[in-house]
């Protein structure tokens, strides 16, 4: 039986949702997975919502879009409100930005709140890297891709100017994720 994991990254335009999705999918390819990734932005999510969805599989993927999220990353309140009910109950996981989102307590889904925006603004001095902080927390908490693969993906797709900042953000995110794991 082919194992499939479906990840939805969501937020609003400008938060780097699409880049994070690209890096995650690319890392999956480096790890030898079959990946199907798709993005959407525009009117469908309220606000100027934006999402990137990645299907990870051990074998060829039949339907390449997400059917239900095993993991939801919600970088904004709107994203959380829109998608929190589309996460698989019991085994699912929601990672959210605790600075923006107040989680609902009636969902039977594991929640992990991280201060991604705060860390990126205060510690990393750049509000554009909370997407990478999220990726760090995600891989540490779920091992969905290896840290080596995501680093390789960053060096492939992020321009040299921002590479070390992004790697720092990844590290910071991994520390946040580790707290959750431990």
């Amino acid at each position, binding site marked *: 039986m082919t194992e499939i994991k479906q990840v939805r990254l969501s937020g609003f335009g400008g938060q780097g949702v699409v880049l994070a999705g*690209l890096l995650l*999918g*690319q890392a*999956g*390819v480096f790890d*030898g*997975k*079959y*990946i*199907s*990734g*798709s*993005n959407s932005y*525009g009117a469908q999510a309220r606000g100027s919502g934006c999402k990137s969805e990645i299907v990870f599989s051990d074998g060829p*993927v*039949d*339907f*390449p*879009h997400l*059917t239900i999220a095993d993991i939801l990353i919600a970088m904004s309140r709107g994203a959380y409100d829109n998608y929190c009910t589309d996460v698989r109950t019991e085994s699912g996981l929601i990672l959210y930005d605790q600075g923006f989102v107040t989680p609902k307590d009636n969902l039977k889904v594991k929640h992990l709140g991280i201060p991604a925006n705060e860390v990126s603004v205060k510690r990393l001095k750049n509000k554009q890297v909370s997407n990478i902080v999220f990726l760090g927390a995600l891989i540490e908490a779920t091992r969905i891709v290896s840290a080596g693969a995501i680093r390789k993906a960053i060096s492939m797709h992020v321009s040299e100017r921002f590479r070390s900042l992004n790697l720092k953000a990844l590290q910071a995110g991994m520390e946040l994720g580790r707290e959750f794991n431990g």
Partner: protein
Amino acid sequence: MPFRWVKSPFPKGTYYFSGNEAAAEGAIAAGCRFYAGYPITPSSELMERIAVRLKEVGGVFIQMEDEIASISATIGASWAGAKAMTATSGPGFSLMQESIGYAAFTETPCVIVDVQRAGPCTGQATKVGSGDIMQAKWGSHGDYQVIALSPWSSQEMYDLTLRAFNLSEQYRVPAMVMADEAVGHLRETIRVAPRVEVWDRKKKKGGAPFDIEGEDGVPPMAAFGEGERLSVTGSTHDAYGFRKTDDPEVHARLVGRINQKILNHKRSIIETEDYLLEDAEVALIAYGFTARTSLYAVKRLRKEGQKIGMLRLKTLWPFSDERVAEVGKKVKRIMVPEMNLGQVAGEVKRCVVCDVISLSQTNGEVIGPELLIETLKKI
């Protein structure tokens, strides 16, 4: 040998390309060295990537003033000896039709990738559709043939663009890759083989470029500047390109040949794939992105005990009459899910006597598994 094996321009391995990027890579692998295009959503990433790649491999890229100019420059470059292509979406594809007819009538190899969006008209520029299937076949005036392929994955954007070039060169015909927005923007794991099979148009010094006795009906094609003093015209012409606009025999013979040279080779042009059809009572006939949904639905319903299978059309034109007819004889019902109002369903009905149900969705979204499974449970 009419074809040769060449080393892939990309090292063997796995990559993470969007469909549009993969199509650009497939073109480069096929030997494409000329691209003329005009920006249009949702195909533009193809042009952006091939602009970079052609520079790397010593080819020519130009952004033209519109889509008519793009396909026309593509045809001009093809006669200058290039493997040439353009890409577009619905509105641009409409503008290209007259020149596509020119390419068919002058037997000019060229490739057009149409990343279909939700039409008609400007429609929903960023949303998916597959409403250009009939236009691909019938969009230009008069009777002619084209080859049109339908990719369902990023991998096939690579594979089928490459194949489109090969078929186009082999048969001297415009070949189209009828992609859709969902496949064009889908980013997937792609495997690049170490070597690819590449076809080149055949050449024969002094050979008549517009007629041939026997053989495969495909005359040799020289390039401008090779000393052949070619005469190429979109008017009715004889074997050497002289206009014969009053001669009924020449016209009938030419129109007949440019159609027959494709139809006579249907067997080697058409590719279909069977999925769980052996004992199926219901068959889905699907293509493009919708075939992904269909395969998912078939596997789900099989688990629930339904005898259902799928025939996937990798080639849309020429149409798979024979295979569709065979499937029609074996099953009780056929359903054709597609993102238009039944363009392929109509073709299927023409080929079979069993029930054909058209499942259409034209709301700018892909047909999802739920809709398809629910509909299939009801029939």
